[in-house]
């Protein structure tokens, strides 16, 4: 993995979780930080994830593979925020450290909760939670055809870092 590029300028301050807001159809959505104790609920969420929304092999499909994947990424070194509606997790966003002091970001929202502004809130609060523990460089990859996701990342402040491979790489400085 080569050296990544990040914008020179920091984008400012993001809000920290916990938070609550109305995410379309009068659904009360709550955001909070999550950890190892949430793995069971996260496995359940990812079992209901639309396979068409998978990206580069994640989330895995098999429940055991989902659990192994979550146990690898939800650690003390990562920053993880969930979106809950009533008793159920409906969204998850996470920052996982790379080996160069940066963090890779991913966000997943159940299909029936997409298009309700949850992604914007979840991403902002994830970056806020990251800032609170000193995260200052974040990157992600996204499929080139995923216009909705790319527009969301741009709105938050991500810039294109590299467009030389299959996926578009974007980055942000906090």
């Amino acid at each position, binding site marked *: *993995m080569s050296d990544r590029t990040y914008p020179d300028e920091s984008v400012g301050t993001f809000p920290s979780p916990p938070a609550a807001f109305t995410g379309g159809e009068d659904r009360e959505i709550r955001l909070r930080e999550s950890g190892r104790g949430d793995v069971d609920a996260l496995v359940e969420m990812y079992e209901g994830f639309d396979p068409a929304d998978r*990206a*580069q*092999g*994640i989330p895995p499909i098999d429940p055991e593979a989902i659990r192994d*994947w979550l146990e*690898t*990424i939800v650690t003390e070194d990562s920053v993880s925020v969930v979106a809950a509606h009533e008793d159920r997790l409906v969204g998850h966003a*996470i920052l*996982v*450290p*790379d*080996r160069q002091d940066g963090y*890779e*970001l*991913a966000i997943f929202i159940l299909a029936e909760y997409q298009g309700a502004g949850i992604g914007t809130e979840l991403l902002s609060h994830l970056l806020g939670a990251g800032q609170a523990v000193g995260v200052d460089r974040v990157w992600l*990859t996204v499929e080139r055809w995923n216009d909705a996701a790319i527009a969301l990342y741009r709105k938050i402040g991500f810039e294109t870092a590299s467009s*030389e*491979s*299959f*996926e578009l790489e974007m980055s942000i400085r906090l």
Partner: protein
Amino acid sequence: MKVLLGTGGRADGFDALDRTLERTREAGDDLTVAVLETSSDEDVAAVAEGVRERVADSGVDAEVHVLEGHPGSQLVELAETGGFDRIVLGGGQRSPLGKIDLGEVAEFVLLNADVSVTLVR
């Protein structure tokens, strides 16, 4: 079937090599291994030596070549000029989050090869 495996020195390359050797033995394929210059920090000759040892240990009779220069185009050219039926490559590294990241070589070969390409997962 005449199979051309392209490998760098990275972990996924050796994994692909081991799986391809196993498959070659089962299918009775005719295998050639091309060691590619995928990174300037790797000693291609040392990688090739490691590959030859692994091939010898497996009991499979396969030629091992070092391809110098641009790895993707050299591999595609060898596949065409050598009359190969298939190119085999490692199926990508995983990012910290577990995303599959296809490297430059895999992308070049997938887009430019006129034979079928197998990515080993």
